[in-house]
């Protein structure tokens, strides 16, 4: 009986905890902030409050819709680490890229050595990182439209923890004191380019309610 229960649980353990549903291609709202459209259907999941879209799986490529309020960190973490960088509404786009990189470094590379030394390791936090944050390089920060808003976009690259090369592009704007960011990442080999045109379509489809 016990073995049977374990076998029933196995598919869930293998596929991970995220629950995916299909993102409709037309007029998909991102929270109550804006909506986007896509020519194709994506699988969507809630990744700790962040809307995540993917076609081949988030380890290969993923489009994330991030929204950060003034004073909040980029990604909410389980521990109340005061050192997590916080977004400020007065940031310039250059400072937003610094905030972006610093946040990923903190989340991914910031294994709490004090906790480790005490034997209190949040393994989930290490698993969640997924990227080797010390390898992130941002480039080509430039003005871009985020729907009707003046915004910015930038490119970046980094390595996964296993040393796999990845590429990323991000489109963002600051609206009503809130950072809106769409971030697409994928493996440099094949997957990043595979869906890039679709992502560009999503980027250019942003509708901000008046």
């Amino acid at each position, binding site marked *: 009986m016990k073995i049977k229960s374990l076998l029933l649980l196995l598919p869930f353990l293998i596929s991970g905890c995220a629950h995916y549903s299909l993102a409709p291609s037309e007029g998909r709202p991102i929270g109550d902030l804006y909506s986007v459209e896509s020519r194709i259907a994506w699988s969507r999941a809630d990744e700790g409050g962040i809307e995540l879209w993917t076609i081949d799986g988030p380890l290969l490529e993923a489009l994330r819709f991030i929204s950060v309020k003034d004073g909040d960190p980029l990604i909410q973490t389980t521990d109340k*680490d*005061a*050192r997590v*960088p916080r977004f*400020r509404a*007065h940031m*310039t*786009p*250059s*400072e937003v890229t*610094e905030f972006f*990189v*610093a946040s990923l*470094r*903190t989340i*991914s*590379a*910031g*294994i*709490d*050595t*004090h*906790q*480790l*030394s*005490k*034997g209190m*390791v949040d*393994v989930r936090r*290490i*698993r969640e*990182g997924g990227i*080797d944050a*010390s*390898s992130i390089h941002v*480039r*080509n*920060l*430039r*003005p871009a439209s985020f729907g009707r808003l003046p915004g*910015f976009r930038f490119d970046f690259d980094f*390595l*996964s*923890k*296993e*040393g796999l*090369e990845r590429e990323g592009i991000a489109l963002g704007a600051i609206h009503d004191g809130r950072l809106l960011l769409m971030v697409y990442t994928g493996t440099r080999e094949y997957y990043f380019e595979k869906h890039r045109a679709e992502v560009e379509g999503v980027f250019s489809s942003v509708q901000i309610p008046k």
Partner: protein
Amino acid sequence: MRFCRILFFLCFVCVGCLSCATPRGAPGALDDIQPGQRPDPSSDEAGLWLYMDRIESRLKSSGRVITDPSLNAYVRQIVCNLDPIHCADIRIYIVDTPNFNASMAPNGCMQVWTGLMLRAENEAQLAYVLGHEMAHYLRRHSVQQWRTVRNTTSALAFFSLATALAGVGFAGDIATLVAVGAIFAYSRDQEREADLIGFEMMAKAGYEPLQAAEIWRALMAEEEAAEQSSKSIFFATHPTSAERIATLKDMAEKTSKSRDSWIRGRQEYMAATKPFRMSWLGEEVQKGSPKTTGVVLNRLLKSEIDPPEAHFFLGELYRLRGEGGDCETACSEYRKALEMGMTRPEIYKSLGMVYWRAGKKKEARESFMEYLKANPDASDRRIIETYIHQLR
């Protein structure tokens, strides 16, 4: 008869004393590892090596290892100066991570983190830290600890941790290494022994003995300033103390008289690390531990190492922290860097952002214009032009 008994007893004591020389140290100490030695495949030590071999294999492909041949040859030369006999058995990996750390796994895998290389002021200081870690390897301390913890509740913690972390990639492996280090935190006696052997190795190789206490002292200052959650990985496994520094200083004063000249190797060290120092400084600032990074940068300035760069990155530290008064301090540091002849274009962009934050629009605009003038091909040129436009 009685005399014979006493003679026999004395012989026994003498033989016992001779055997004390190897192995040295506490009860349970093992023989030193011999050149080319591998553990018996059926032993528990072989299992430990196998585990470390797997971690080393991931480390190699992690993309974090600096492969620059000159820098690697330089560090290898220091290791070979310290121990020419075992140097061929040691595989060195310079890991691009902005934390102070060096470690040696029992299988001969040595990690030297760039955070250590940034902090060392000269070759002798790096040599001492490497010698200390090599002493743990030569004395097989981690194997001793492995055997000790197997009989304690910590062993359960180790295996559950190792199992949980298995397969999460290299960052996980760093965590594993640190966790292994933490659980295998060397005993006070082993630390003393590594201090002593590391010190003997550096002195024998001709490195200035006083530098051993110097790097410990610098690290202790950093540790005292550290935010609780950013305590150094190295200190998690190598607790320091004023007593330890005093002992090293005392040994150094006695040893210093044995030679007329010693190698400090500051020029050689700076020449070998120069191509990487800007990048290491940048990573140090971005790691998000402003208090300890401030201590590091101020120490570099005091030692007149990278002065313009240290001023620039102090400015960056204050700008990124952005607390009350930080903008003014950042401005002051940037100006000092410029006065010292720094020509890095980014300094003007940083100045522009600080002035803008302070409401000094004219100065901000001029700084951004200076940035573009100094770096006409900047990849962020178009966004900087929008800043200049907004500041009109």
